[in-house]
């Protein structure tokens, strides 16, 4: 990914060798894999969850899963895509368990109709206080954007984070999420429109 999340091709070529070295008993090869991907995985988890501690926990859990299931890795896809798949699934599990706790932190800004999946708080923002919007700074704006991401449904949040935040290509998002191209484009367009509504006047 480059600056927008793409990994340099030279680095990617090292990964199969590292994986094979790890499978042959070289535990330092696993450390190299962790050091290369830890920030990206951590960032993905943070944007998916909106909480630093939960992101830390999920990122660690992701690499623990990788450590234990690396022997099942097949080299027909890139290691980063496989890693992102594990991270996204770990975050989804975390969302299910932390949903109530996160809702406790949020205050509804309106009363949107309940969606078909039973998920009601589509448009929620973290309570910034009455004068927060008037004192917007970069950090506060980022918090609002993150809050808008957090308010998205899980599938919409996943595609937005993977595509717009992490900068993955359509093909990579398809590999990670398992959606087809039409579904991905549809979900992504709907998620962006929701964010635009939520962030009106913020960005």
């Amino acid at each position: 990914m480059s600056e927008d999340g793409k990994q340099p091709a030279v680095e990617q070529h090292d990964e199969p060798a590292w994986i094979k070295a790890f499978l042959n008993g070289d535990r330092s090869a696993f450390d190299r894999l962790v050091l290369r991907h830890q920030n990206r995985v951590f960032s993905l988890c943070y944007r998916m969850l909106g909480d630093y501690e939960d992101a830390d926990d999920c990122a660690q859990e992701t690499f623990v899963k990788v450590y234990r299931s690396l022997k099942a890795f097949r080299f027909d896809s890139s290691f980063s895509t496989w890693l992102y798949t594990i991270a996204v699934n770990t975050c989804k599990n975390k969302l299910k368990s932390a949903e109530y706790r996160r809702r406790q932190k949020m205050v509804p800004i309106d009363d949107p109709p309940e969606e078909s999946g039973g998920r009601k708080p589509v448009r929620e923002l973290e309570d910034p206080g009455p004068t927060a919007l008037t004192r917007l700074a970069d950090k506060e704006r980022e918090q609002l954007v993150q809050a808008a991401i957090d308010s998205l449904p899980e599938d919409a949040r996943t595609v937005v984070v993977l595509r717009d935040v992490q900068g993955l290509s359509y093909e990579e998002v398809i590999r990670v999420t398992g959606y087809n191209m039409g579904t991905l484009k549809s979900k992504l367009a709907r998620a962006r429109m929701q964010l635009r509504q939520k962030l009106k006047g913020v960005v």
Partner: protein
Amino acid sequence: MECSRFKELFSDHIDGTLDEQTRRMLEGHLAVCEHCAEELRELRACVSALGSLEKVQAPADFLHRVHERIHRGEPVSWRQWLKEKLCFPVRVKLPLGAAGLVMTALLVMVVYQGTRQRTGPVPVPVPAQVPEPSAMKPQEQLESRLDDRQQLALRESPAPPLSETAAGSGAPGSPPALARESRPMRLTLVIGHDERRGRAFAQKERPGSEDDKPAEVPRGTSTVAPERKTLAPPAASQSAPPASPSTSGKGMISSRSKAAETPPGETGPADTRLERDDKALRSYARDKETESAVGGTAPPDAQRKRETTKASKGPAEIRMLVQQVGGVVETARHRDSSSQPESLTVRIPTASLSRFLDDLLRIGRLRGPVEPGADVSENATILVEITLE
């Protein structure tokens, strides 16, 4: 095309995935529709804001914590697991474990003591019908033959009630049931010390006069009947209901008082065994009558001989009674410088205890309290220690 259809193309237009013809059509619409152009600008700014979000860095010790988590989840040997669970941190878990052990030990002791205190005598099912004397417990059999005073003495005796000495009783402080089983019933039998009254009794109940009729003896009269000629039929005595303490007269127990309790209508023909007993006792009474007729003139040697004969007849009769009920004489303790036993310890079948006591009371009288001995309601035999006077 309406604006809503163009808005569906905004996302693909931002990503540059629209085909050339669709892109030109959209751009043409945006040139004339300010509202859609504004909305596209907002959407593009939103996507840009998402892409410009700060890249959150992992903590510096992220790799170290991943290692810790990996090793924490790895399977360890059960010894290491047990050690970690029980002993670490040592300052906390060792005192806690010790306190838990002490509390568990105390709890076990309290529960054990409570269980022992709650455990009472084993309930014995009581038959619905009136029990036969032979089926009664030794305590009941004995009480049915005692007057009030002796029953009182029996109850106040240091020996615990028979019901509390049942086998299996776990009352605290009680000796083991096995030791109690060997404790005999103790009684003191006086034989031949009231010869005159005994003879009078024998004459009164001589065959042909008032045989099989219970004598009208006032309550509280002590009667000794070692020479009683007529014995109550065992069947009648055994089928007679046990006398309750409230109906028993005061005074020493005697065979006459027992005979008075026997309903006259139940005195049937005696069996052959008792006929033989009667003959033996009658001959013994006739001998004594002969002795009394010449008693005043008898020389001192003859008197001593008669005393010796009397003293020797008591144990002999007891031995005979024991044999008749199918028992055995286990031990005989002798006085110093005397060939006559001072006491006899006999083992009697429990079923025959009632009959044996009846027979004993016909040749002598009881003196003092009777120690009931071990509860042998579940044993086949009972030990009876008879002290002779």
